[in-house]
Protein backbone atom coordinates (compact mmCIF):
# COMPACT_ATOMS: atom_id res chain seq x y z
CA UNK A 1 0.00 0.00 0.00
CA UNK A 2 1.27 3.41 -0.81
CA UNK A 3 1.09 6.22 1.59
CA UNK A 4 -1.38 8.40 -0.28
CA UNK A 5 -0.34 11.75 1.01
CA UNK A 6 -2.11 13.61 -1.72
CA UNK A 7 -5.18 11.53 -2.45
CA UNK A 8 -8.11 12.53 -0.31
CA UNK A 9 -8.81 10.11 2.52
CA UNK A 10 -12.11 8.29 2.75
CA UNK A 11 -13.82 6.82 5.79
CA UNK A 12 -12.15 3.47 5.19
CA UNK A 13 -8.63 4.92 5.25
CA UNK A 14 -7.75 4.83 8.89
CA UNK A 15 -10.92 3.16 10.11
CA UNK A 16 -8.75 1.10 12.47
CA UNK A 17 -8.14 4.31 14.38
CA UNK A 18 -11.76 5.13 15.12
CA UNK A 19 -12.54 5.10 18.85
CA UNK A 20 -15.94 4.10 20.20
CA UNK A 21 -18.42 6.96 20.31
CA UNK A 22 -20.30 8.58 22.00
CA UNK A 23 -18.44 8.73 25.29
CA UNK A 24 -20.05 9.19 28.69
CA UNK A 25 -19.23 12.42 30.47
CA UNK A 26 -17.84 12.09 33.99
CA UNK A 27 -18.61 15.67 34.91
CA UNK A 28 -21.85 16.90 33.32
CA UNK A 29 -20.24 20.03 31.85
CA UNK A 30 -16.69 18.95 31.13
CA UNK A 31 -15.22 17.09 28.18
CA UNK A 32 -15.53 13.32 28.62
CA UNK A 33 -12.38 11.20 28.73
CA UNK A 34 -11.07 10.65 25.23
CA UNK A 35 -12.17 14.03 23.87
CA UNK A 36 -8.70 15.42 24.36
CA UNK A 37 -7.37 12.85 21.88
CA UNK A 38 -10.19 13.52 19.43
CA UNK A 39 -9.50 17.22 19.64
CA UNK A 40 -5.84 16.62 18.82
CA UNK A 41 -6.84 14.69 15.71
CA UNK A 42 -9.11 17.55 14.60
CA UNK A 43 -10.67 19.15 12.71
CA UNK A 44 -12.12 15.91 11.32
CA UNK A 45 -11.56 12.31 12.37
CA UNK A 46 -13.38 9.00 12.58
CA UNK A 47 -15.33 7.25 15.31
CA UNK A 48 -17.04 3.87 15.64
CA UNK A 49 -20.70 3.75 16.64
CA UNK A 50 -22.42 1.07 18.77
CA UNK A 51 -23.38 -0.95 15.70
CA UNK A 52 -19.83 -1.07 14.38
CA UNK A 53 -20.39 1.60 11.80
CA UNK A 54 -17.60 4.13 11.29
CA UNK A 55 -18.65 7.77 10.94
CA UNK A 56 -16.93 11.11 10.54
CA UNK A 57 -16.54 13.29 13.60
CA UNK A 58 -16.16 17.01 13.01
CA UNK A 59 -14.37 18.73 15.87
CA UNK A 60 -12.90 21.91 14.37
CA UNK A 61 -14.86 25.12 14.86
CA UNK A 62 -14.12 26.68 11.47
CA UNK A 63 -14.65 23.44 9.57
CA UNK A 64 -17.87 22.71 11.42
CA UNK A 65 -19.18 26.19 10.66
CA UNK A 66 -18.50 25.50 7.02
CA UNK A 67 -20.20 22.10 7.07
CA UNK A 68 -23.28 22.92 9.16
CA UNK A 69 -24.83 25.14 6.45
CA UNK A 70 -23.81 22.76 3.63
CA UNK A 71 -27.00 21.49 1.98
CA UNK A 72 -25.21 18.28 0.94
CA UNK A 73 -25.38 17.22 4.59
CA UNK A 74 -28.87 16.03 5.39
CA UNK A 75 -30.80 15.87 8.66
CA UNK A 76 -33.28 13.35 7.28
CA UNK A 77 -33.48 10.75 10.05
CA UNK A 78 -35.42 8.43 7.76
CA UNK A 79 -32.49 8.13 5.36
CA UNK A 80 -31.33 4.52 5.79
CA UNK A 81 -27.74 5.75 6.09
CA UNK A 82 -28.48 8.25 8.83
CA UNK A 83 -26.02 7.61 11.69
CA UNK A 84 -27.68 6.52 14.93
CA UNK A 85 -26.01 6.95 18.29
CA UNK A 86 -27.88 4.26 20.19
CA UNK A 87 -30.16 1.29 19.63
CA UNK A 88 -33.08 3.15 21.13
CA UNK A 89 -32.98 5.71 18.36
CA UNK A 90 -33.24 2.86 15.88
CA UNK A 91 -36.40 1.83 17.71
CA UNK A 92 -37.76 5.35 17.43
CA UNK A 93 -37.05 5.43 13.73
CA UNK A 94 -39.06 2.28 13.13
CA UNK A 95 -42.06 4.49 13.65
CA UNK A 96 -41.17 5.93 10.24
CA UNK A 97 -42.22 9.45 11.05
CA UNK A 98 -39.46 12.03 11.01
CA UNK A 99 -39.67 14.51 13.87
CA UNK A 100 -40.66 17.87 12.34
CA UNK A 101 -38.09 20.69 12.30
CA UNK A 102 -35.18 18.63 13.63
CA UNK A 103 -35.35 15.50 11.48
CA UNK A 104 -36.20 16.91 8.05
CA UNK A 105 -34.47 18.96 5.34
CA UNK A 106 -35.63 22.01 3.43
CA UNK A 107 -38.13 22.71 1.95
CA UNK A 108 -40.20 20.78 4.54
CA UNK A 109 -38.08 22.19 7.33
CA UNK A 110 -38.39 25.77 6.08
CA UNK A 111 -42.17 25.47 5.80
CA UNK A 112 -42.44 24.12 9.35
CA UNK A 113 -40.01 26.66 10.76
CA UNK A 114 -41.81 29.57 9.18
CA UNK A 115 -45.06 28.43 10.74
CA UNK A 116 -43.82 28.82 14.30
CA UNK A 117 -41.03 31.34 13.93
CA UNK A 118 -42.95 34.55 14.74
CA UNK A 119 -43.72 33.30 18.25
CA UNK A 120 -40.03 32.93 19.08
CA UNK A 121 -38.87 36.36 17.92
CA UNK A 122 -36.97 38.78 20.12
CA UNK A 123 -39.96 41.08 20.66
CA UNK A 124 -42.33 38.23 21.47
CA UNK A 125 -39.86 36.73 23.90
CA UNK A 126 -39.16 40.06 25.57
CA UNK A 127 -42.88 40.48 26.14
CA UNK A 128 -42.78 37.18 28.04
CA UNK A 129 -39.98 38.26 30.39
CA UNK A 130 -42.26 39.49 33.20
CA UNK A 131 -44.15 36.19 33.04
CA UNK A 132 -40.90 34.23 33.22
CA UNK A 133 -39.77 36.34 36.19
CA UNK A 134 -43.03 35.63 37.96
CA UNK A 135 -42.66 31.88 37.50
CA UNK A 136 -39.08 32.04 38.78
CA UNK A 137 -40.14 33.94 41.89
CA UNK A 138 -43.14 31.74 42.60
CA UNK A 139 -41.08 28.58 42.35
CA UNK A 140 -38.38 29.96 44.64
CA UNK A 141 -41.00 31.16 47.13
CA UNK A 142 -42.19 27.58 47.33
CA UNK A 143 -38.72 26.10 47.48
CA UNK A 144 -37.49 28.51 50.15
CA UNK A 145 -40.63 28.25 52.28
CA UNK A 146 -39.32 25.05 53.90
CA UNK A 147 -36.47 27.03 55.43
CA UNK A 148 -32.71 26.60 55.15
CA UNK A 149 -30.86 23.37 55.81
CA UNK A 150 -33.14 21.13 53.77
CA UNK A 151 -31.97 19.29 50.69
CA UNK A 152 -34.08 19.72 47.57
CA UNK A 153 -33.69 18.66 43.96
CA UNK A 154 -33.14 21.92 42.13
CA UNK A 155 -34.00 20.24 38.84
CA UNK A 156 -37.54 19.27 39.79
CA UNK A 157 -38.17 22.23 42.10
CA UNK A 158 -36.93 25.00 39.84
CA UNK A 159 -34.91 24.26 36.71
CA UNK A 160 -37.56 22.07 35.07
CA UNK A 161 -40.93 23.57 36.12
CA UNK A 162 -39.90 27.05 35.00
CA UNK A 163 -39.30 26.35 31.30
CA UNK A 164 -42.18 23.89 31.46
CA UNK A 165 -44.59 26.60 32.56
CA UNK A 166 -43.28 29.02 29.96
CA UNK A 167 -43.52 26.70 26.96
CA UNK A 168 -46.99 25.60 28.12
CA UNK A 169 -48.09 29.20 28.26
CA UNK A 170 -46.62 29.97 24.86
CA UNK A 171 -48.10 26.93 23.16
CA UNK A 172 -51.39 27.07 25.01
CA UNK A 173 -51.09 23.82 26.92
CA UNK A 174 -53.02 23.92 30.21
CA UNK A 175 -50.39 24.02 32.93
CA UNK A 176 -52.54 21.83 35.21
CA UNK A 177 -51.52 18.97 32.97
CA UNK A 178 -47.80 19.59 33.22
CA UNK A 179 -47.02 16.59 35.40
CA UNK A 180 -48.25 14.42 32.56
CA UNK A 181 -45.65 15.60 30.10
CA UNK A 182 -42.84 16.91 32.36
CA UNK A 183 -41.88 13.37 33.21
CA UNK A 184 -42.53 12.09 29.70
CA UNK A 185 -40.34 14.82 28.17
CA UNK A 186 -37.50 13.60 30.33
CA UNK A 187 -37.96 10.10 29.01
CA UNK A 188 -37.89 11.30 25.41
CA UNK A 189 -34.70 13.34 25.56
CA UNK A 190 -32.76 12.59 28.70
CA UNK A 191 -33.53 9.21 30.18
CA UNK A 192 -30.53 7.01 30.82
CA UNK A 193 -30.20 3.26 30.70
CA UNK A 194 -30.90 0.70 28.00
CA UNK A 195 -34.17 -0.51 29.53
CA UNK A 196 -35.64 2.90 28.85
CA UNK A 197 -35.48 2.65 25.06
CA UNK A 198 -39.08 1.55 24.83
CA UNK A 199 -40.07 4.08 27.46
CA UNK A 200 -38.75 6.96 25.36
CA UNK A 201 -40.80 5.80 22.41
CA UNK A 202 -43.92 5.38 24.50
CA UNK A 203 -43.49 8.76 26.15
CA UNK A 204 -43.28 10.47 22.77
CA UNK A 205 -46.43 8.68 21.57
CA UNK A 206 -48.28 9.67 24.72
CA UNK A 207 -47.36 13.34 24.47
CA UNK A 208 -48.38 13.25 20.83
CA UNK A 209 -51.77 11.76 21.74
CA UNK A 210 -52.24 14.38 24.45
CA UNK A 211 -51.54 17.22 22.01
CA UNK A 212 -53.75 15.70 19.34
CA UNK A 213 -56.56 15.68 21.86
CA UNK A 214 -55.72 19.25 22.87
CA UNK A 215 -56.02 20.34 19.24
CA UNK A 216 -59.57 18.94 19.17
CA UNK A 217 -60.44 20.76 22.36
CA UNK A 218 -59.03 23.99 20.98
CA UNK A 219 -60.92 23.59 17.74
CA UNK A 220 -64.09 23.50 19.79
CA UNK A 221 -62.99 26.35 22.05
CA UNK A 222 -60.34 28.59 20.46
CA UNK A 223 -57.95 30.76 22.47
CA UNK A 224 -55.09 33.06 21.51
CA UNK A 225 -51.92 31.01 21.94
CA UNK A 226 -49.45 29.68 19.37
CA UNK A 227 -51.34 26.42 19.02
CA UNK A 228 -54.63 28.27 18.48
CA UNK A 229 -53.00 30.42 15.87
CA UNK A 230 -51.59 27.41 14.06
CA UNK A 231 -54.99 25.77 14.10
CA UNK A 232 -56.71 28.87 12.73
CA UNK A 233 -54.10 29.91 10.17
CA UNK A 234 -52.55 26.64 9.08
CA UNK A 235 -54.69 23.64 9.94
CA UNK A 236 -58.04 25.03 8.93
CA UNK A 237 -56.56 26.40 5.72
CA UNK A 238 -55.24 22.96 4.88
CA UNK A 239 -51.60 24.10 4.97
CA UNK A 240 -50.70 21.49 7.56
CA UNK A 241 -52.37 18.26 8.44
CA UNK A 242 -53.44 17.38 11.92
CA UNK A 243 -50.80 14.78 12.57
CA UNK A 244 -48.00 17.08 11.43
CA UNK A 245 -49.31 19.86 13.63
CA UNK A 246 -49.47 17.58 16.66
CA UNK A 247 -45.92 16.41 15.90
CA UNK A 248 -44.64 19.99 15.63
CA UNK A 249 -46.27 20.86 18.95
CA UNK A 250 -44.73 17.74 20.52
CA UNK A 251 -41.24 18.63 19.33
CA UNK A 252 -41.59 22.20 20.64
CA UNK A 253 -43.00 21.05 23.97
CA UNK A 254 -40.34 18.41 24.55
CA UNK A 255 -37.43 20.58 23.46
CA UNK A 256 -38.76 23.53 25.43
CA UNK A 257 -38.61 21.42 28.56
CA UNK A 258 -35.43 19.50 28.52
CA UNK A 259 -32.87 21.78 26.98
CA UNK A 260 -33.35 24.83 29.15
CA UNK A 261 -33.83 22.89 32.36
CA UNK A 262 -30.57 21.04 31.85
CA UNK A 263 -28.78 24.27 31.06
CA UNK A 264 -30.11 25.93 34.24
CA UNK A 265 -28.96 22.94 36.30
CA UNK A 266 -25.51 22.70 34.69
CA UNK A 267 -24.99 26.46 34.81
CA UNK A 268 -25.76 26.43 38.51
CA UNK A 269 -23.23 23.64 39.06
CA UNK A 270 -20.58 25.34 36.95
CA UNK A 271 -21.04 28.68 38.70
CA UNK A 272 -20.88 27.05 42.13
CA UNK A 273 -17.54 25.61 41.06
CA UNK A 274 -16.34 29.10 40.05
CA UNK A 275 -17.36 31.21 43.05
CA UNK A 276 -15.48 34.34 41.98
CA UNK A 277 -17.38 34.45 38.68
CA UNK A 278 -20.63 33.73 40.48
CA UNK A 279 -19.97 36.67 42.79
CA UNK A 280 -19.23 38.93 39.85
CA UNK A 281 -22.57 37.97 38.30
CA UNK A 282 -24.39 38.48 41.56
CA UNK A 283 -22.87 41.92 41.88
CA UNK A 284 -23.67 42.95 38.31
CA UNK A 285 -26.62 41.33 36.59
CA UNK A 286 -25.86 43.14 33.35
CA UNK A 287 -23.11 40.54 32.85
CA UNK A 288 -25.76 37.85 32.57
CA UNK A 289 -26.44 37.73 28.80
CA UNK A 290 -22.78 37.20 28.02
CA UNK A 291 -22.40 34.74 30.88
CA UNK A 292 -25.28 32.70 29.49
CA UNK A 293 -23.53 32.41 26.13
CA UNK A 294 -20.34 31.37 27.83
CA UNK A 295 -22.17 28.77 29.92
CA UNK A 296 -23.79 27.46 26.74
CA UNK A 297 -20.38 27.15 25.12
CA UNK A 298 -18.84 25.57 28.16
CA UNK A 299 -21.52 22.94 28.78
CA UNK A 300 -22.46 22.25 25.12
CA UNK A 301 -25.42 20.11 26.15
CA UNK A 302 -26.56 19.23 22.64
CA UNK A 303 -23.13 17.86 21.86
CA UNK A 304 -23.73 15.47 18.99
CA UNK A 305 -25.55 16.65 15.89
CA UNK A 306 -25.87 13.96 13.25
CA UNK A 307 -26.04 14.30 9.49
CA UNK A 308 -25.81 12.02 6.48
CA UNK A 309 -23.97 13.07 3.31
CA UNK A 310 -26.15 13.14 0.19
CA UNK A 311 -23.20 13.83 -2.13
CA UNK A 312 -19.43 13.60 -1.93
CA UNK A 313 -17.88 16.51 -0.05
CA UNK A 314 -14.15 17.21 -0.08
CA UNK A 315 -12.73 18.84 3.02
CA UNK A 316 -9.28 19.16 4.54
CA UNK A 317 -7.80 16.35 2.46
CA UNK A 318 -10.67 14.01 3.23
CA UNK A 319 -13.61 13.03 1.12
CA UNK A 320 -16.92 12.55 2.86
CA UNK A 321 -18.67 10.13 0.51
CA UNK A 322 -22.37 10.15 -0.22
CA UNK A 323 -24.00 7.91 2.40
CA UNK A 324 -21.34 8.55 5.07
CA UNK A 325 -22.54 9.48 8.52
CA UNK A 326 -21.23 12.76 9.91
CA UNK A 327 -21.37 13.78 13.57
CA UNK A 328 -20.69 17.40 14.45
CA UNK A 329 -19.50 17.64 18.03
CA UNK A 330 -20.60 21.03 19.31
CA UNK A 331 -18.58 20.51 22.47
CA UNK A 332 -15.34 19.96 20.57
CA UNK A 333 -16.11 22.83 18.20
CA UNK A 334 -16.80 25.01 21.24
CA UNK A 335 -13.54 23.97 22.82
CA UNK A 336 -11.38 24.41 19.76
CA UNK A 337 -8.26 26.25 20.87
CA UNK A 338 -7.97 27.98 17.51
CA UNK A 339 -11.28 29.73 18.06
CA UNK A 340 -11.29 30.17 21.82
CA UNK A 341 -8.45 31.19 24.05
CA UNK A 342 -8.11 28.87 27.06
CA UNK A 343 -11.02 26.95 25.59
CA UNK A 344 -11.47 24.66 28.60
CA UNK A 345 -11.83 27.51 31.08
CA UNK A 346 -15.14 29.03 32.07
CA UNK A 347 -14.78 32.76 31.62
CA UNK A 348 -17.97 34.80 31.74
CA UNK A 349 -15.98 37.87 30.71
CA UNK A 350 -14.97 36.27 27.42
CA UNK A 351 -16.10 38.27 24.38
CA UNK A 352 -19.23 36.44 23.25
CA UNK A 353 -17.46 34.11 20.86
CA UNK A 354 -18.60 32.03 17.96
CA UNK A 355 -19.94 29.12 19.89
CA UNK A 356 -22.25 26.65 18.21
CA UNK A 357 -24.08 25.45 21.31
CA UNK A 358 -27.42 26.33 19.66
CA UNK A 359 -26.24 24.55 16.52
CA UNK A 360 -25.49 26.34 13.28
CA UNK A 361 -26.99 26.30 9.82
CA UNK A 362 -30.69 26.08 9.04
CA UNK A 363 -31.44 23.95 12.09
CA UNK A 364 -30.04 26.39 14.61
CA UNK A 365 -32.25 26.30 17.70
CA UNK A 366 -35.53 28.06 17.01
CA UNK A 367 -36.09 28.66 20.72
CA UNK A 368 -32.77 30.33 21.39
CA UNK A 369 -34.20 33.75 22.26
CA UNK A 370 -36.60 32.13 24.66
CA UNK A 371 -33.90 29.89 26.10
CA UNK A 372 -31.60 32.86 26.66
CA UNK A 373 -34.32 34.85 28.42
CA UNK A 374 -35.20 31.88 30.63
CA UNK A 375 -31.59 31.20 31.56
CA UNK A 376 -30.84 34.84 32.30
CA UNK A 377 -33.87 35.21 34.54
CA UNK A 378 -33.56 31.80 36.20
CA UNK A 379 -29.90 32.27 37.10
CA UNK A 380 -30.15 35.92 38.14
CA UNK A 381 -33.14 35.20 40.36
CA UNK A 382 -31.49 32.16 41.94
CA UNK A 383 -28.26 34.05 42.68
CA UNK A 384 -30.14 37.02 44.08
CA UNK A 385 -32.53 35.12 46.27
CA UNK A 386 -30.42 32.20 47.48
CA UNK A 387 -27.01 33.64 48.29
CA UNK A 388 -25.95 30.64 50.38
CA UNK A 389 -26.87 28.06 47.74
CA UNK A 390 -24.56 25.03 47.58
CA UNK A 391 -24.55 21.45 46.36
CA UNK A 392 -25.84 18.96 48.91
CA UNK A 393 -23.60 16.17 47.58
CA UNK A 394 -20.05 16.22 46.21
CA UNK A 395 -20.13 17.41 42.59
CA UNK A 396 -18.84 14.07 41.30
CA UNK A 397 -21.85 12.29 42.79
CA UNK A 398 -24.42 14.22 40.79
CA UNK A 399 -25.91 11.65 38.38
CA UNK A 400 -25.03 12.36 34.75
CA UNK A 401 -27.21 11.54 31.72
CA UNK A 402 -26.33 8.78 29.28
CA UNK A 403 -23.90 9.87 26.57
CA UNK A 404 -26.23 9.59 23.56
CA UNK A 405 -28.95 11.87 24.84
CA UNK A 406 -29.09 15.51 25.76
CA UNK A 407 -26.31 16.16 28.26
CA UNK A 408 -27.48 16.99 31.72
CA UNK A 409 -28.13 15.56 35.15
CA UNK A 410 -31.04 13.47 36.37
CA UNK A 411 -31.14 15.34 39.68
CA UNK A 412 -29.33 18.20 41.35
CA UNK A 413 -29.44 18.02 45.15
CA UNK A 414 -28.84 21.44 46.68
CA UNK A 415 -29.17 23.12 50.04
CA UNK A 416 -28.81 26.67 51.39
Amino acid sequence: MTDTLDAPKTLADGAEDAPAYPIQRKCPYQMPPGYEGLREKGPISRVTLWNGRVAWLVTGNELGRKLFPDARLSSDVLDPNFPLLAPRIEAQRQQAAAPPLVGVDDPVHARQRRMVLPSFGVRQVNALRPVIQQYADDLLDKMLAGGPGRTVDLLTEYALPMPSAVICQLLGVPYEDHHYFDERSRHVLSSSGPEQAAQAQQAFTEILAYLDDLISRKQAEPGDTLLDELIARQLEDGKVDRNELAMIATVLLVSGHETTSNMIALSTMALLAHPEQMEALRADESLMPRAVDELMRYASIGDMLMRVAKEDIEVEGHVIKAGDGVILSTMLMNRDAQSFEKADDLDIFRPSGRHVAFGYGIHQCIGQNLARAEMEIALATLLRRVPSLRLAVPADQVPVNAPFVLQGVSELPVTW
Partner: protein
Amino acid sequence: MRISIDTDRCIGSAQCAVSVPFVFEQDDDGFSTVIAGREDGAGHPMVREAVRACPVQAITLAETQEA
Protein backbone atom coordinates in the same frame (compact mmCIF):
# COMPACT_ATOMS: atom_id res chain seq x y z
CA MET B 1 -20.61 49.60 2.82
CA ARG B 2 -24.10 48.30 2.19
CA ILE B 3 -25.75 45.50 4.18
CA SER B 4 -28.26 43.20 2.60
CA ILE B 5 -30.13 40.19 3.91
CA ASP B 6 -31.23 37.29 1.74
CA THR B 7 -34.70 36.77 3.18
CA ASP B 8 -35.11 33.44 1.39
CA ARG B 9 -32.20 32.16 3.40
CA CYS B 10 -32.76 33.85 6.75
CA ILE B 11 -34.04 31.41 9.36
CA GLY B 12 -34.92 34.12 11.85
CA SER B 13 -32.39 33.02 14.43
CA ALA B 14 -32.14 36.69 15.46
CA GLN B 15 -28.42 36.44 16.11
CA CYS B 16 -27.94 39.66 14.16
CA ALA B 17 -30.77 41.53 15.87
CA VAL B 18 -29.48 40.46 19.28
CA SER B 19 -25.86 41.36 18.63
CA VAL B 20 -26.40 44.64 16.74
CA PRO B 21 -29.92 45.86 17.58
CA PHE B 22 -28.94 49.28 16.31
CA VAL B 23 -28.77 47.95 12.75
CA PHE B 24 -30.90 44.77 12.53
CA GLU B 25 -34.46 44.08 13.61
CA GLN B 26 -36.97 41.30 13.22
CA ASP B 27 -40.15 41.74 11.21
CA ASP B 28 -43.52 40.32 12.25
CA ASP B 29 -42.82 37.04 10.49
CA GLY B 30 -39.68 36.61 12.56
CA PHE B 31 -37.21 37.36 9.76
CA SER B 32 -34.48 39.89 9.95
CA THR B 33 -34.38 43.24 8.23
CA VAL B 34 -31.98 46.13 8.22
CA ILE B 35 -33.39 49.17 10.00
CA ALA B 36 -34.22 51.86 7.45
CA GLY B 37 -31.45 54.39 7.13
CA ARG B 38 -28.84 52.06 8.63
CA GLU B 39 -28.08 50.01 5.52
CA ASP B 40 -24.51 51.27 5.73
CA GLY B 41 -24.10 49.68 9.16
CA ALA B 42 -23.87 53.12 10.74
CA GLY B 43 -20.21 52.48 11.36
CA HIS B 44 -21.00 49.80 13.91
CA PRO B 45 -17.95 47.61 14.49
CA MET B 46 -20.07 44.56 15.34
CA VAL B 47 -21.69 44.36 11.90
CA ARG B 48 -18.87 42.25 10.50
CA GLU B 49 -19.15 39.92 13.45
CA ALA B 50 -22.91 39.61 12.81
CA VAL B 51 -22.15 38.58 9.23
CA ARG B 52 -19.90 35.82 10.55
CA ALA B 53 -22.32 34.78 13.25
CA CYS B 54 -25.32 34.35 10.94
CA PRO B 55 -25.88 30.57 10.91
CA VAL B 56 -26.96 30.51 7.27
CA GLN B 57 -24.74 33.25 5.90
CA ALA B 58 -27.72 35.31 4.83
CA ILE B 59 -26.09 38.69 5.45
CA THR B 60 -23.77 40.18 2.86
CA LEU B 61 -21.74 43.33 2.88
CA ALA B 62 -21.09 45.14 -0.36
CA GLU B 63 -18.23 47.55 -0.16
CA THR B 64 -19.37 50.83 -1.66
CA GLN B 65 -17.06 53.35 -3.15
CA GLU B 66 -16.28 56.32 -0.95
CA ALA B 67 -17.53 59.43 -2.73
